[in-house]
């Protein structure tokens, strides 16, 4: 076992839908890659917060003596130094999704793009709505990536005349999405669109709208690419006509690339931006993974 190449994978724990999907893809990729490459050992560790993740990185180095690290940082800034410390042991570093403050640490960057996600969502809104139309926004948990999405969205609709009635946190959680939307519906008689930013929230929002019987008044734009939502988009659901991809499978891409660094001859560096394309009825089929839990 000593001569195996060890690759540490450090990701946040599966506390909500998107991270759950990410965890699933990581576990699937581990199985697949370890089966295909007997000399590779992937070690997945999950963290409940930035400090916890920093501890995980220490353990990967001190206990497992990893040769490479795939990391999806909980937060960019606090994890920059701990990842740098791993780098200093000579490990190959692949950063996923949330970039470090010092990009020179990473050998490879695989990313969704929070800003693009906000922009694409806003641009779709602008195709459907115009001056004087009202929307409400349900945000995630107050963290960096939520703020990035939100700021990009707001910057994009700036000047379009679309009126943002209010935004509230729904914690990337169906129940909170349901309750916040109920309250928005009680509060605002005229809502034309909802940006729910995340598919878990979207599911709660949809139930609240159905409960109020106001399906025909508005539409909802979510995000991530949950299979139920994509199925709906494929089937032409009017209430949730599109989705914006934020693929949990990006972790698998990152693991693939990192393993490639060890098994292929060619150099592996640079950035792999997966982007956040708009999923519509037309292209939905290519994003549909019925076996994924997400």
């Amino acid at each position, binding site marked *: 076992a000593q001569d195996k190449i060890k690759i540490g994978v450090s990701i946040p724990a599966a506390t*909500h839908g998107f991270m759950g999907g990410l*965890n699933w893809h990581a576990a699937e990729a581990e199985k697949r890659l370890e089966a295909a490459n007997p000399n590779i050992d992937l070690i997945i560790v999950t963290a409940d917060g930035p400090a916890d993740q920093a501890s995980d990185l220490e353990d990967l180095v001190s206990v497992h003596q990893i040769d490479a690290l795939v990391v999806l940082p909980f937060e960019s800034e606090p994890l920059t130094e701990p990842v740098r410390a791993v780098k200093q042991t000579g490990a190959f570093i692949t950063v996923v999704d949330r970039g470090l403050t010092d990009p020179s640490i990473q050998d490879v960057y695989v990313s969704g793009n929070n800003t693009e996600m906000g922009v694409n969502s806003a641009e779709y809104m602008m195709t459907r709505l115009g001056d004087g139309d009202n929307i409400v926004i349900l945000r995630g948990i107050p963290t960096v990536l939520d703020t990035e999405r939100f700021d990009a969205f707001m910057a994009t609709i700036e000047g379009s005349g679309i009126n943002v009635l209010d935004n509230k946190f729904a*914690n990337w959680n169906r*129940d909170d999405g349901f309750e916040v939307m109920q309250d928005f519906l009680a*509060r605002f008689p005229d809502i034309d669109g909802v940006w729910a930013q995340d598919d*878990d929230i979207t599911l709660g929002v949809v139930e609240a709208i159905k409960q109020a019987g106001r399906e025909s008044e508005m539409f909802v734009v979510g995000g991530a690419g949950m299979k139920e939502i994509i199925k709906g988009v494929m089937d032409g659901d009017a209430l949730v006509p599109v989705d914006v991809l934020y693929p949990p499978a990006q972790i698998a891409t990152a693991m693939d690339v990192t393993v490639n660094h060890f098994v292929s001859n060619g150099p592996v560096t640079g950035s792999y931006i997966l982007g956040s394309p708009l999923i519509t009825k037309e292209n939905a089929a290519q994003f549909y993974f019925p076996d994924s*839990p997400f």
Partner: protein
Amino acid sequence: MSVSAHEAAKPGKGFRLDLKTAGPLLALILLVVLGYSLNPAFLNEGNVTNILTRSAFIGIIAVGATFVITAGGIDLSVGSMAAFIAGVMIIIMNWAVGAMGASIWTVLLGVGCSLILGIGAGFINGFLTTKAKIEAFIVTLGTMGIYRSLVTYFADGGTLSLNNGAREIYRPVYYDSFLRIPYPVWVFITVAIIGWVLMNRTAFGRYCMAIGSNEQVARYSAIKVDRVRTATYILQGLCVSLATIIYVPRLGSASSATGVLWELEAIAAVIIGGTMLKGGFGRIGGTVIGALILTSIGNILNLTEIISNYLNGAVQGVIIVAAVYLQRGSLSARRKKAE
């Protein structure tokens, strides 16, 4: 010596006791006034129904928690227990649909399993606390982690979703009403009434208070302390199960995010309602009001824009502390006047 020196009961005594229960009510009323003044939509029938329905979850669980806390225990596992029960219910119902198609029996099977799981989970907590003599805090911290993990594991990190056919049949349990009051609220009302009767009109309630107030005295008074204590945890499990039964038809899913922090909310509802964390003293009525207060705070924050979103938690904290201060304060002021 035959004359007994009894004097007449103090006047105003009953009144004072009433005030003690009235404390949380007062806080709730002030909150309602605040809500209405911030946004008159607060008192729309729809919004009021929403608040009531939402408080049903926490409220039902908190009724159970009132017994546990009154008997001197604590249960931190309720939130993850709810997630776990919801998850298993969904798995079983989905399996049943696969095996024999969706019907009312599928739902009844799910409900039955939920009740068994709730009672079982409560029993485990009770058993570990009373027989293995491990502190309730540790036991339920442990089971909290275990249930949360299990549901994550069953859901493969994702979400367990109820089969659509079963969902259609089950859906009305959450969304439909009787006499314009949604079913969850009926369940809440029923649980609260039964809880109140249990606490105040049966030997069991009296035993809970006795055990929470002095376990030794209870033991010397021929009370089966371990059995009563275990029963409080089972009751808690049953309440969690009931809450889950009305929760699942709402979104038809369960995940690792289901029921997070419900334990804290439930305990907070209990204590806002005037029950003492140290045990010995339980108020079901107060608990119900406590649950309404907590839900209303969240609702009010969603109905107004004047507060930065980031500060929601702070406002919540301030209101909770203020609400409790208010009832204690108004109380001691009255008491002083009475003396």
